[in-house]
């Protein structure tokens, strides 16, 4: 009997319209229960990023409607003819259908006019005269898939937690997060980039129409800004390298620049015509990617900030990253393309990509440059693709590809261990750490109860923060340096500086 329950559950999860049977209560329901009356009082409400009271053992309940189905319908711009067709009873030809069903009972002889009528009806129903068409197929159908072949996608959707690898990990990685912070109202939209961690150890988080800053060292929380119009929301955040300015992209096509010390808005740069879902800094140049597919370069020092337009995508630019040496800009879009842009214009005065990678079969939001090997880029694909690919952007070759079996939302490299970490969605909502270049799985970090949306790394490289649709931020201490190795590294760094000192003398 249990298998039917499981199947029913699985079907229930895939169905989009029905309410979910065993889902954890929604935030507003929980709040209502807590305060005991209609609507929570402001004082009793849970403020963002306070440590949440959650027990680690409660993560067995089925997750919410898989994000894969929710987001595509909710956030992508409606394409003509691309939306789901919902039948309309009033446009159904019930009389026609009834006629077709009962005509066998009618007498066989038909008058010529009746024949004409029937023909007209047939054309109306089928779009062409079906009496005039016949259906053919080529005989000698090819073989089916070999025995024992299980549909690849079934493996994807029924994946159970993989048994622990027999090979012992070379280091201890805690399987539970260091901290869990509340992120109420965080937008469950795959295409946005809502968190970023500054070099001054501030974690910026966009929760719908507000941006909060969490000081990792002190635990202090500041609300930096709130959008004026209630329908507007923040679609991306990005810290400048020095950590004193924060760039904010919004749903009404603005790119704002905020001074953190004064908590004041310095600039409001408008040049896009649709929401700005991705941002990336290269010294004083801020690049922004919008829903139209356009990328703008802004020189934040001058009044005429919009200095360049890069047109290489036909749909939303959701992944945008400058290389660490500032020579290349990598962009990934909902059109499944990855473009590599040079930092200078070509002879014609226009920016043209030096590479375009088309291998991903899904939207590319995860884009990350390798910090210890120049010109190496990692990209990850959305639900239709699920692959992580490593590229050499100079030669244009794909060095490695691995099937991650789940929507990839973000990738971060760790120079501490020569590894990289990826964030995923349905069905396990896990973070996976991979060894580079062997592409072996080091470990999987589980805990999120809905799909991971974004990843960001602490300035010391030891902690990774993940934001997910379950309205939590989890901090995983997965790349902490061994204290002995840390001392060696610091010694090496200080030795360098002393040599410089001697040189100056």
């Amino acid at each position: 009997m249990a298998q039917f329950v499981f199947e029913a559950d699985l079907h229930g999860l895939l169905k989009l319209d029905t309410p979910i049977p065993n889902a954890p209560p929604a935030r507003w329901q929980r709040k209502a229960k807590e305060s005991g009356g209609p609507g929570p009082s402001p004082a009793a409400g849970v403020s963002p990023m306070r440590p949440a009271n959650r027990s680690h053992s409660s993560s067995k309940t089925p997750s919410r409607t898989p994000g894969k189905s929710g987001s595509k319908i909710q956030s992508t711009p409606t394409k003509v003819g691309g939306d789901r067709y919902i039948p309309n009873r009033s446009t159904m030809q019930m009389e026609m259908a009834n006629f077709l069903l009962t005509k066998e009972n009618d007498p066989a002889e038909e008058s010529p006019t009746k024949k004409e009528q029937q023909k007209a009806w047939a054309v109306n129903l089928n779009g062409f005269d079906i009496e005039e068409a016949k259906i053919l197929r080529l005989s000698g159908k090819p073989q089916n898939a070999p025995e024992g072949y299980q549909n690849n996608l079934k493996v994807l959707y029924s994946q159970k937690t993989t048994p622990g690898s027999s090979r012992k990990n070379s280091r201890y990685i805690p399987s539970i997060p260091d901290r869990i912070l509340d992120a109420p109202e965080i937008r469950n939209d795959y295409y946005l980039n809502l968190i970023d961690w500054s070099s001054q150890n501030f974690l910026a988080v966009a929760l719908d129409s507000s941006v909060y800053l969490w000081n990792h060292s002190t635990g202090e929380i500041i609300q930096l800004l709130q959008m004026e119009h209630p329908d507007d929301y923040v679609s991306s955040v990005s810290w400048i390298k020095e950590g004193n300015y924060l760039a904010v992209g919004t749903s009404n096509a603005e790119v704002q620049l905020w001074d953190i010390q004064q908590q004041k808005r310095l600039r409001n740069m408008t040049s896009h015509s649709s929401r700005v879902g991705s941002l990336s800094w290269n010294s004083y140049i801020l690049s922004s990617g919008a829903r139209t597919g356009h990328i703008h370069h802004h020189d934040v020092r001058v009044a005429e900030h919009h200095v360049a337009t890069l047109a290489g995508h036909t749909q939303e630019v959701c992944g945008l990253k400058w290389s660490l040496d500032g020579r290349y800009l990598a962009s990934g879009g909902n059109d499944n393309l990855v473009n590599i842009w040079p930092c200078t214009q070509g002879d014609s005065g226009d920016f043209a990509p030096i590479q375009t990678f088309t291998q991903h079969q899904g939207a590319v939001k995860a884009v990350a440059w390798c910090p210890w090997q120049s010109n190496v880029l990692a990209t990850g694909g959305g639900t239709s693709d699920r692959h992580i690919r490593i590229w050499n952007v100079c030669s244009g070759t794909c060095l490695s590809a691995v099937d991650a079996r789940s929507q990839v939302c973000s990738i971060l490299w760790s120079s501490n261990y020569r590894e990289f970490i990826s964030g995923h969605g349905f069905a396990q909502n896990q973070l996976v750490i991979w060894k580079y270049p062997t592409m072996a799985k080091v470990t999987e970090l589980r805990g999120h109860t809905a799909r991971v949306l974004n990843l960001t790394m602490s300035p010391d490289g030891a902690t990774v923060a993940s934001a997910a649709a379950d309205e939590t931020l989890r901090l995983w201490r997965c790349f902490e340096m061994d204290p002995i190795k840390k001392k060696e590294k610091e010694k090496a760094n200080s030795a360098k500086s002393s040599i410089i000192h001697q040189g100056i003398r």
Partner: protein
Amino acid sequence: EADKLGRDQQGITLRGSAEIVAEFFFYGINSILYQRGIYPPETFTRVQKYGLTLLINTDPQLKNYLNNVVEQMKEWLYKCSVQRLVVAISSIENNEVLERWQFDIECDRTAKDESAPREKTQKAIQDEIRSVIRQITATVTFLPLLEAACAFDLLIYTDKDLAVPEKWEESGPQFIANSEEVCLRSFTTTIHKVNSKVAYKKDSFP
């Protein structure tokens, strides 16, 4: 290559249009077989087409079968005698049709008598085809899982008076009993217009 370039400059002829549409069906059918998991992914190889990376099956028997269908489609498209192509996916166990991809073809028969090619760039057509193929790929995000082992069937709706070639036979439409339908984008060469949609079995379980 030179002929191809010549075709680019010259615009769309009836024969050129038939080739474009037949080619689209070859890559479209392969994409469906890959994305829906009808055949194991390792039996597919990647090729560049329409500015995309597409997957085509390498099994020689399957390749041969598809090529035969596509070649025949090309001829029928040229004669404007084909109205629809259907990819029907059914469960091997009980032959129930679970998914049905329908490509309706509208042919402008006046092109048969014309001598001058029509004005539309290859690039514009490619862009439209690219959008349709991307949509086919993206459908995996909402199409129900095909749990059972499945087989596919290709059905061509032709004019009634068309001579049935050797090795072809007549068939039923293989409709889905209780279905949901989603319309995809269409593309046109100005001579042939292809409208795509996919129907799938509505969820019903004991």
